[in-house]
Structures are given as structure tokens and as C-alpha cells.
């Protein structure tokens, strides 16, 4: 639904004339007028207020009893008193009451020093208590999950965590059990509270009842400093504050940015910081010496890596999703200018495996048109949101919360068109399944149904979806994954035209790239077929990831430059990549963990920076440039990425002129036309959306030349008849949120690292005689993977899904579109 109109009204608080927007709560209006009203349970991000803690009582003229200001909307002409004797007495009484069962173990409590209960007791409490009865006792501390500890004695029953679980993340796990003074927060049957967003309850808790296990007793508020940064572990790029003590990140807190994250963080962003300070991390350059990677000096490592210059024209560069724009630009310059090769790719998983061909430059340019870009808040206020070939829970988890918020609070209609059932299935108004890899064809069929080229004969489901998009309101936001491929992208261009998305402010597209900074790297020119800013290339287009692997395996490419990625681990077709890396004479990698491919095949490994150490910029999927800032010093001998790349380029014969991180940024701004005139000050802490800047007109989308090939055969929904006939299942892959090296080496996230699961439909499970939870073997061409079967009702018959990016039994091992499943 579109954003509501705002009407300003006038009221009086403590004798002050206050202007407020109609419908805001009294406590917020008072805050604007610098009148402080204490509260615990109120949190506007959690939706409707509950008035549970009774701390915010105020006197309103005309109402005989005291009112909770957190749940009283302002009215024109209201006269409010917050400091009368009656209010003061009530506040004293509430504090005394809340402390009846509070253990007051502040010296051992992690919240001590940053605790609202401490502050409010100090500011509004009486200072003593009349209660001499014993307090209630619970077993403490108790692990609510391996990540969160619960101390029920400290709980003041404010409902914040329960509301988060019930209304924000909608995992429905936290509840209140028992009644009255016996009430306590728990999960059903005492199960651990394991959910992708569970860490947020720690930050929400106004007392020390919920504390983070990894931060337990690590530091006190006066021991620490906050460093603002951006999490680059996924494309959501949530704004965070790193809590730093003694040059070590101790915890990560959300930094509320309405345009990006709405103040929430996923558990990966919140707890994977531990990977920065573990022994597994590489902090010295390594060079392979007699078959073994040994620590060495930077000088030797750079000298060895400068051997890339000897492979001029035969170097393939793979850029990991966490690279900053500046690093992307430097890598593209190194590859194109110094090494004479346009074989550079940052698109990762996209356009490989069962997904369609990568989105070509001309289509990417059209889809990146400033008028077509939806912002993150647009998701919340759209009429209809369509998920096309993506699952926000795994691809960009914080957008999953944004969609839930839109559906729950603003009546957004959600439509899903994916192969694999998403986490948002229950919130969707309409869902269309397609076979794995059929998203592109589904999009094409949808485009035809919308623009009316095929009026009759469209299948009912697609016609219904087309009707919802066309007639359900003008503001349509489409979130799509890069896996829709060239065909899907061409169809998307047609859909956007037919729905006139470019003409509406609140409508548009958001692409969820495979890499965290996928959009920025494309704009910086780290793709084979476009220069910086979607510009034309001087020479012919280079090879993409899959072709680089093939060329390396056949010897056409003799050296590989891997920036922040291990293709054996991350990319499809492990066997091919193993062959490619074995055949390459020189493999230069920048990495923080030695994953399989690097440990076995890398010649030189430079230690890479973490996102808390980096200085640079990244681009959010909605076009927001955000700044990474240095929160902690580089551990060990780690050097900044830009410095390593500039030095490597110099040794390969290219003087980049980058002597400082700012130089790299200035080169980026000069190279990308739509960034023109941008300064780091302008980006600041909240970022700048370039599609909103006047310079965005420098990107002329033009007409796409790629049309997506011949007319699609079928609509992508029906599984391949040939595959289904012999009992084989059509394989689809997805990248789970937790399948990342960072999670594997973070001590407290290890329990979340996924094992392979085979998701299949109930019908197929019955046919194959496989129960939910059974151990199965997935076979294909002699490759066998072990997996646990998971029967999901949303999965289409004939399809099955496996996770990729795992250390063992990963779907990356498989290359064919179908699999055989048997019980183990």
C-alpha cells in the first residue's frame, strides 16, 4: 500500500506547544519536544504497542486515570502532564514493582552500564524498596540457544522478545508460559530458539535477561568503542556498529538505517565477526614451496605473484562478492590494462549450474536504469511484491523481514515465482512453482501474459499472477535473483515496460546478486562484458566464470587470480575447477581462510581483510553506495586490499597512481559516470542512492540487443517429461545462508553450518520410499553425495533441491540436471 499521508496537529506537553504527526504515540511526540518519558516495552519497530511495562504513565487532562503514553496516539488540543506529583508517584511505584523480583546482580550482569532498567531506576525510582519477601528464583544462566543466554530472574516481562519472534521474524518460537507473577519467557517444549534472526532479541531486551553467548563477560560499556561499518557477508549490506575492545571486535550491533536494514540484523551478520579473530585466519602471506604453503615475507609473496605478468593475455580473474568497489576497479584495471585480459568475473554462482546464462551487459544496463530501481522501503509500501527466482531468507535475509513487515502492516500482496519454495510461502497471496532452472522461461511466459502477446492459452496460474501484477495496484516491486539468466532478464525488461514500473516512484526492480557487493563490482567493471559504469569495452568481451574454468582446464588460461573466493568451494562444477586449478601454472589468491581449493592449488595466498578492517565503498542492491570504514587495526601482517592490488599492478608494469584508499575511491568516481562528483563525506554513515542523484541520467539504458533467444518452449512450470519418466529427479540448487567459510570458523556459529539436505516433494518421497529425515544417497554420473531427506510440501513433484557452497557433499560436485536418489 502507498505511504499514508501525514497530518500535523498541535498538543501541549508540560506546558510546551508541540507539533506532531497525527497517529504518532504520545511518547514519541514528547521525545520530539525534549520531554523524556521513561519506558521499557515500547519499540516502534515491533509494531503496535502493548503497554506491558506501565512505566510511561502520564496524566492527560480530561481523562481521570493515568494513561500509558506509549499506546496513546496524540490528538489535536491534548494537554499532557508528565511531571506532576501523581505521575511521579506512579513512576516510583512501577520501578519499585519491577524490581520486586529483579535480582539486582548488576556487577555480574552483561547489561550493566548500558541497561535501561538501571538508568530508569536511577532517574525515576525512589531509591529504596519496601519489599522484604524473597525474590523468585530460576535456574540461571540458561542457554536459550547456543547463541543466546536467558536469565529469567532479570526479566521484567516487557514482551519485546516475544513480539519480535511472533510479529517480526514470524518464527513463532518464543512465548510466555504460566500466568501472573509466575510468567516467564520460553520456547515450546523448551526447544532451543534457533532462528536466522534470533540475535535481535538480545539487542531488544531492556534488561540483562537475554545476553549474547559469544559476548558473555567480554567487555563492559566503558571498556569499549563503537566503530560504524557495513556488514558485507550478504547483499543486504546491513549497517552495523562494531564493538571494539583492544583492537578486537567483541560484538556487532545493528545501526538503524531505515533505507537499508530497518534496525535488524541476521545472526550471520551479528555473530560471524568471530571469524576475524580465530587461529584459522591467514594473517601472513603464504607461498607454495616444495608443494607446501609456507608463511613468507610480503616481498617474496609479491614477487611470486608478479609472475602473473609472464602469463599476459592468459590470466583469468575471479572476484569474490565481498570485494569493495575500489578493489573491483583495481582488479579490472590490473586484468585489462596490465595483464591484457578481459577474463574477469564477479558474478559468481549466477548464470551457471542449472540457472540460465549470465545476464549480458546490455540487459544488465537496461535493468540498472535509474528509473527502474526500487528502494528497500518501497518493498514495504508497494501494492504488490513479486519474488522471481530468489529466496530473500537465503540471498539477503534482512529483506525477508522487510517483506514480512510490508505484508503484515501495510497490506502488501506478495507473489512468489520460484522453483524452490521460499521462507515467505505462508505470507504469499499467490505462488507459482517452476522446475529448477525454469525461472527464465516462467518470466518469459509471465511477460507474454502481461503484455498480452499471448492472451488466450496462458496457464491459469500465470494468468492469475499476471492479473495480480497488472491490476493489483501500480506500485509493483520485483525482487529477482541473477539465476533467472539472460532469458529471464529479457522477459523482465518486457514486464517492467508493460507494468510501467519506470514511471512510478514506488515501483521498480531489485536484483539480489550472488555476491554481497555484486552490484558494485558490476558497476566497477569487474565483469567480462562491460567496463566501469556499464560502459562499453574497447576490446571484445572476455570469459565468464564457467568459461574461465574450461579455458584453464584446457590450458588456454595459464594463471588464475582469485580475489576473496575459492572457486572449488563457491562455484558450480567442482571437478572442472579442481582440474582448472591443477592445470594453472600460477594461482594467486587473496583469502582469509584456506579452503580446500586454495590449500591444494594456490601458489601464492595473500591474507585478506575482513569487513571490519576495510576502507572502501560497496553498493547495495538498490543502488545505495555505502562506506566501509576501519573499525580495528589489521591483525598480523594483513595489508589493505587496495594497497596489495596497487603494488601487484606496479610489479606487473601498471602504475595505478593509487597511494591511498582515497585515491582508489577518486579513480572509481572518475571511472563510473553515475558516481560523478560523489565524495566520501556525501556517502557518510547512511549511504547515498545513486539512482536518486541527478548524475544518474548519465546511465542511458538504451535498447537491449539480447532478446533472450527463441520463443520459450513451455512456461517452465512442468518438469521435464524425460527426466521424470525414469524416476530421476530434476536437481535445483540454492545457497543456504549459513554456507560460508565465516560461519565454519566462528566458534559459536559452527552448530549452524549446514549438512547436505535433499528437499523433495511428498509424492516423490512416497514413490521412492523415503521418509522425512531419512539418510539418502544422491547419485549422478558416479558422483555420490550423502544427504538427509527433507520432505517439503511446497516442492513441485519431480524436483529436488540440494545446497551448494558446503564443504562436503555439496551440490557443486554435480553437473547434470537430474539426480538419482536412493536410501542409504
Amino acid at each position, binding site marked *: 500500500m502507498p505511504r499514508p499521508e501525514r497530518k500535523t496537529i498541535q498538543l501541549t506537553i508540560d506546558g510546551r506547544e508541540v507539533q506532531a504527526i497525527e497517529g504518532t504515540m504520545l511518547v514519541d511526540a514528547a521525545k520530539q519536544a525534549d520531554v523524556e518519558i521513561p519506558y521499557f516495552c515500547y519499540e516502534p519497530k515491533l509494531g503496535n504497542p502493548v503497554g506491558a511495562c506501565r512505566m510511561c504513565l502520564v496524566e492527560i487532562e480530561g481523562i481521570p486515570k493515568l494513561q500509558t503514553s506509549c499506546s496513546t496516539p496524540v490528538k489535536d488540543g491534548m494537554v499532557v502532564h508528565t511531571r506532576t506529583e501523581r505521575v511521579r508517584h506512579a513512576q516510583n511505584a512501577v520501578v519499585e514493582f519491577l524490581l520486586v523480583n529483579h535480582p539486582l546482580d548488576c*556487577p*555480574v550482569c552483561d547489561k550493566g552500564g548500558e541497561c535501561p532498567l538501571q538508568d530508569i531506576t536511577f532517574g525515576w525510582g525512589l531509591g529504596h524498596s519496601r519489599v522484604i519477601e524473597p525474590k523468585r528464583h530460576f535456574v540461571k544462566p540458561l542457554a536459550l540457544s547456543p547463541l543466546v543466554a536467558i536469565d529469567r530472574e532479570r526479566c521484567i516481562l516487557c514482551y519485546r522478545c516475544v513480539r519480535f519472534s511472533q510479529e517480526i521474524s514470524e518464527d513463532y518460537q518464543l512465548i510466555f508460559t504460566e500466568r501472573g507473577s509466575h510468567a516467564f519467557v520460553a520456547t515450546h517444549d523448551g526447544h532451543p530458539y534457533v532462528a536466522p534472526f534470533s540475535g535481535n532479541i538480545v539487542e531488544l531486551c531492556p534488561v540483562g535477561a537475554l545476553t549474547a553467548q559469544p559476548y558473555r563477560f567480554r567487555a563492559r560499556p566503558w571498556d569499549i568503542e563503537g566503530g560504524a561499518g557495513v556488514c558485507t557477508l550478504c547483499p543486504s549490506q546491513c549497517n552495523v556498529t562494531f564493538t571494539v575492545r583492544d583492537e578486537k571486535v567483541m560484538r556487532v550491533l545493528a545501526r538503524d538505517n531505515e533505507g537499508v536494514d530497518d534496525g535488524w540484523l541476521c545472526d550471520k551478520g551479528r555473530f560471524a565477526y568471530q571469524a576475524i579473530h580465530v587461529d584459522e585466519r591467514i594473517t601472513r602471506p603464504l607461498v607454495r614451496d616444495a608443494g607446501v604453503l609456507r608463511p613468507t615475507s610480503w616481498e617474496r609473496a609479491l614477487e611470486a605473484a608478479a609472475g602473473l605478468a609472464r602469463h599476459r593475455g592468459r590470466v583469468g580473474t575471479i572476484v569474490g562478492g565481498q570485494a569493495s568497489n575500489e578493489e573491483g576497479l583495481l582488479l579490472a584495471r590490473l586484468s585489462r590494462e596490465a595483464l591484457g585480459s578481459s577474463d574477469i568475473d564477479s558474478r559468481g554462482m549466477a548464470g551457471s549450474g542449472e540457472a540460465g546464462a549470465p545476464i549480458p551487459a546490455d540487459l544488465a544496463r537496461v535493468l540498472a536504469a535509474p528509473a527502474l530501481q526500487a528502494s528497500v522501503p518501497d518493498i514495504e509500501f508497494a501494492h504488490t511484491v513479486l519474488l522471481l527466482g530468489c529466496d530473500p531468507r537465503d540471498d539477503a535475509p534482512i529483506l525477508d523481514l522487510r517483506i514480512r513487515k510490508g505484508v503484515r502492516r501495510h497490506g502488501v500482496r506478495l507473489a512468489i515465482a520460484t522453483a524452490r519454495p521460499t521462507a515467505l510461502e505462508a505470507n504469499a497471496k499467490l505462488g507459482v512453482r517452476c522446475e529448477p532452472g525454469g525461472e527464465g522461461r516462467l518470466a518469459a511466459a509471465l511477460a507474454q501474459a502481461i503484455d498480452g502477446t499471448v492472451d488466450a492459452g496462458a496457464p491459469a496460474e500465470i494468468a492469475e499472477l499476471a492479473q495480480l501484477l497488472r491490476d493489483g495496484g501500480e506500485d509493483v516491486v520485483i525482487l529477482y535473483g541473477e539465476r533467472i539468466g539472460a532469458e529471464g532478464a529479457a522477459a523482465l525488461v518486457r514486464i517492467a515496460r508493460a507494468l510501467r514500473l519506470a514511471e512510478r516512484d514506488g515501483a521498480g526492480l531489485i536484483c539480489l546478486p550472488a555476491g554481497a557487493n555484486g552490484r558494485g563490482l558490476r558497476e566497477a567493471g569487474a565483469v567480462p562484458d562491460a567496463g566501469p559504469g556499464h560502459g562499453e569495452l574497447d576490446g571484445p568481451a572476455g570469459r565468464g566464470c564457467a568459461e574461465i574454468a574450461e579455458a584453464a582446464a584446457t590450458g588456454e588460461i595459464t594463471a588464475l587470480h582469485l580475489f576473496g573466493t575459492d572457486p572449488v568451494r563457491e562455484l558450480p562444477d567442482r571437478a572442472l575447477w579442481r582440474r582448472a586449478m591443477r592445470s594453472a601454472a600460477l594461482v594467486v589468491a587473496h583469502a582469509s581462510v584456506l579452503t580446500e581449493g586454495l590449500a591444494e592449488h594456490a601458489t601464492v595466498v595473500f591474507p585478506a581483510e575482513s569487513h571490519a578492517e576495510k576502507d572502501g565503498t560497496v553498493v547495495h542492491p538498490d543502488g545505495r553506495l555505502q562506506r566501509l570504514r576501519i573499525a580495528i587495526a589489521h591483525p598480523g601482517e594483513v595489508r589493505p586490499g587496495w594497497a596489495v592490488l596497487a603494488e601487484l599492478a606496479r610489479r606487473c608494469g601498471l602504475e595505478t597512481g593509487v597511494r591511498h584508499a582515497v585515491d582508489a575511491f577518486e579513480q572509481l568516481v572518475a571511472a563510473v559516470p553515475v558516481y560523478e562528483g560523489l565524495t566520501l563525506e556525501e556517502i557518510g554513515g547512511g549511504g547515498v542512492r545513486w539512482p536518486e542523484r541527478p548524475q544518474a541520467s548519465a546511465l542511458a539504458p538504451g535498447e537491449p540487443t539480447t532478446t533472450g533467444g527463441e520463443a520459450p518452449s513451455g512456461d517452465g512450470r512442468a518438469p521435464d517429461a524425460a527426466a521424470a519418466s525414469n524416476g530421476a529427479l530434476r536437481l535445483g540448487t540454492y545457497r543456504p545462508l549459513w554456507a560460508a567459510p565465516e560461519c565454519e570458523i566462528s566458534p559459536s556459529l559452527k552448530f549452524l553450518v549446514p549438512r547436505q539436505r535433499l528437499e523433495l516433494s511428498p509424492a516423490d518421497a512416497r514413490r521412492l520410499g523415503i521418509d522425512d529425515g531419512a539418510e539418502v544417497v544422491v547419485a549422478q554420473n558416479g558422483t555420490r553425495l550423502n544427504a538427509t531427506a527433507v520432505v517439503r510440501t511446497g516442492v513441485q513433484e519431480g524436483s529436488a533441491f540440494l545446497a551448494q557452497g558446503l564443504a562436503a557433499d555439496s551440490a557443486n560436485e554435480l553437473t547434470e540436471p537430474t539426480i538419482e536418489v536412493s536410501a542409504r
Partner: protein
Amino acid sequence: MSPYDPGSVVKVIRAPAPGAVRGAYRVFGETLRGLKTTFMRVVEGPITIQYPEEKTPVYPRFRGRHKLHRFETSDPANPGLEKCVGCSLCAAACPADCIRVVAAENTPDNRVSAGERYAAVYEINLSRCIFCGYCEIACPFDAITMGHDYEMSDYTRSDLIFTKEMLLAEPIERTPLRREGE
């Protein structure tokens, strides 16, 4: 023209010359007065304290080197738990920023203090400490108190960083306490 114009002639006015007696008193009088005190004290005997063989006694509330405390037990072989829970309030109160506390969690196998947490690292940089006693006042468990020891000089600065073990150890009582009425 300035309001005060002394003119070009300066006239010097001198005091009258003193006589012989008055002159002699002027030379030796004050010296003798001082010597009077000296001769009066000579009969009292020397009060010099032969430091370091002898020490100045201190008052009971003298703020010397800090001590950390344990709960008392009757069994000397089995010392009590540490009173310090590692809450770091002393570090917060310290105006010289000389206290560093790193807390850790007690486990059933390794119970160090009575609470959930204990101080895994407790260091006081005595070269920076100003002996104000705020840490003692801030401590909610009376775990840290100011002792009477004032002999803390050492040859290197790093030796002046006292660790938890040093602060917990029973100090060698080198400083006499001033007795009542002394």
C-alpha cells in the same frame, strides 16, 4: 605629559646609620633567636627515622598499595573464593585509567569467584595510579581495598604492573601501623 613627572633631579633619602649595639643586634639577633629553638630541641634527643631500616608508621586509613581479597576460610590449604567478580566498576571509577579487567565465566570445574563471572585478568598499573581510593569505594563486593604498603619503587615500569596474583598474595607487612594516640 604624563600625570607623574619626577623631573630631572632625583633626591636619595637614607635611613640614619645605626649605633654599635644596634648594629651588632641587627647582625646576630635573628640568628640567636633561631639557635634558641635548636638548643631547646637538642635536649629532646634525635628523632630522625633511619629509613629504610626504620619505617614511618602510617594511619589506619592510609591509602597504599591495593589488595585483592578472598573469602576467609579456616583451612589455610584451601583458600576461599575470590571476592572479585570482574565487574570492572573499579576500572570505570579510576580517574587515572590504570586498572584493566578482563572477565570470564566460572565453570563447575573452575570456580574462582562466588558469582557467575570472575576476573581472568586483573591488572593495576601502579606507575599510573594516583592512590585516590575510588576503586575501593566503587567495589560492590569489598574485593579491593587500599593497603598500607608504600614501598613500590622498582627498576622497570613493566614491573609496576601488578597482576591479580600479586594483588591477591598476602603482602609482606613492611609498613608499621600507627598506634592509637600516636
